[in-house]
């Protein structure tokens, strides 16, 4: 069950303040990294919604964000529609695609679910790769950014763009919180613990799974369109299955089933990537070893362990204080 505990609220506010501080002090390169972190955090959070609270370990979330990026590029660069409408359409389109994938895959379990989502991600990849209309191997360029000059904000400034991404991430968090604490979200957590019991009390398990998958697709659509606006160029590499795997790594690294954890995971992952890349070309070796170490250690991820520690401290403190009271009585 998802609870917005005071620890999480505190962490979220701290994170937001740190991001705002970084946005106003960092140079151009730092701002680019910040934007990269924020977009990856959105994708990983969408994955946490389905994997951490529904047990649906999806290996196509990176690819779905790529679908969002392509949908946005087609709406704007190819069809010339206006940008706000394109973003809304992108979110809806990605959500519908995600809903369909969720509906088909919800019949499968465990390793078959992972394989099925992997296959769908690859389907999107090979479709984009071979489509001449979508630019194939060369990708698409000339993607416009949102025009906010009406309210005096120039989004071609990387600081403003990073702040917009931060705002989007904040909204996504509120959205995911709302979904997970609704009846739908509670049913999802219930069926993760026991699908048999959910079926026995008359819930339509497949539909619940598909709905939440589709809703996480809305976040992916937003993340994809922001990603496309950020680099202003997209290529089929966005849809590679290894990217979806990296999103899963980020989620695990931060802490599965905490919703805030993926944000921490994204920050740690991107910062580590840039640090390691300065010393060596073999970044994948480092990520592989870290991943094996985190999973074999049975750890709850960076934020997950921290949260467990804090919660335990708080609980022991409150229990000692109740003990004192009971002794006085």
């Amino acid at each position, binding site marked *: 069950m998802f609870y917005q505990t005071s620890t999480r609220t505190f962490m979220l506010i701290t994170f937001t303040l740190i991001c705002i501080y970084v946005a106003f002090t960092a140079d151009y390169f730092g701002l680019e990294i910040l934007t990269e972190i924020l977009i990856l955090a959105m994708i990983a959070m969408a994955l946490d919604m389905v994997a951490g609270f529904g047990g649906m370990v999806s290996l196509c979330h990176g690819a779905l964000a790529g679908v969002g990026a392509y949908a946005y590029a087609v709406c704007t660069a190819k069809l010339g529609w206006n940008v706000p409408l394109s973003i809304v359409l992108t979110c809806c389109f990605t959500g519908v695609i995600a809903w369909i994938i969720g509906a*088909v895959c919800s019949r499968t379990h465990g390793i078959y679910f992972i394989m099925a989502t992997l296959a769908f991600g690859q389907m999107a990849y090979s479709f984009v790769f071979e489509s001449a209309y979508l630019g194939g191997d060369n990708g698409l360029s000339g993607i416009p950014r949102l025009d906010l000059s009406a309210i005096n904000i120039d989004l071609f400034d990387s600081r403003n763009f990073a702040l917009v991404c931060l705002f989007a991430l904040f909204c996504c968090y509120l959205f995911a919180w709302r979904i997970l604490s609704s009846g739908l979200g509670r049913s999802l957590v219930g069926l993760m613990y026991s699908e048999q019991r959910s079926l026995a009390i008359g819930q339509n398990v497949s539909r619940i799974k598909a709905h939440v998958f589709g809703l996480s697709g809305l976040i992916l659509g937003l993340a994809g369109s922001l990603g496309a606006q950020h680099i202003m160029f997209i290529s089929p590499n966005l849809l590679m299955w290894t990217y979806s*795997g990296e999103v899963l790594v980020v989620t695990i690294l931060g802490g599965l089933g905490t919703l805030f954890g993926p944000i921490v995971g994204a920050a740690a992952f991107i910062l580590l990537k840039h640090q390691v890349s300065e010393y060596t070309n073999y970044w994948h070796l480092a990520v592989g070893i870290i991943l094996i170490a985190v999973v074999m250690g049975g750890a709850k991820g960076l934020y997950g362990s921290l949260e467990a520690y804090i919660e335990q401290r708080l609980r022991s403190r409150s229990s000692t204080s109740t003990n004192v009271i009971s002794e006085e009585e």
Partner: protein
Amino acid sequence: MDTGFWILQFLNALQFSFLLFLLSVGLTVIFGLMHFVNLAHGALYAFGAYVAASVAASYGYWAGVFVAPFAVAVLGLVLYQFLIKRMRSSGPMAQVLVTFGLMFALLDLTRIIWGDLALALDVPASLSGRISIFGVEYPLYRFFVMMVGAIALIMLNLILARTQIGAMIRAGVDNDKMASCLGINVERLFFIVFCVGCALAGIAGAVAAPLLSVVPEMGLEILIPTLIVIVIGGLGSLKGAITGSLIYGFVQTFGAVFAPQFASVVIYVLLALILITKPNGLFPSRGG
């Protein structure tokens, strides 16, 4: 397009299917017995190809083909002892993640050892000719690959169906707890099967090396087709592995002839249809 063209396409599809079979059978038997999915299987195949190419460079092709499976089996042994044994009891997600990390680590290790440049492995003189099949000139080496796959299929089928160890493996796939109650050392069986699966991946890498260029990413590229094969066929069965390989090989080859634009999309659509109608694949093992 005359008959010769179709026979040629048919043979190409068959050759590709048998190569996929060599890879997927190891993966599928490991899954059937251990319920363990090894995403690093493709990396083992690439490792086999590299070992074959570097041994063949100094001692000739045949030495490379014979050394590769042993080298990969030794690597599998090390991985089993240090990683996979401990991951046996964890859920599918942890296993997928650990082998995903392993795949990345092995990819970069091959880069560190052999560099980024492609290695080439020449077809040996004794297999460089052409053979006439149904009036079609076909490269002898591709025919050899088909034969290796077919021999592996027959051998595995005989071992699984006729020998005592085959019976023990089948018992382990059906119900591992019951099998160990009957005095079968299931752990040791797992270990042997894992090493044999790795050796098969090594053979596949070695025989595929002269057909493709040996690059670090070859393991990543072959992994997805292999996974599709075992999902279509059903995890854990020999029949499933060969059926899935044939379906994939033929759809891919003939798809490229009829609809080049959609060749690779067709196979994913087919996979989705199979997952909707038969979520456990066409021939799932009883235990899975």
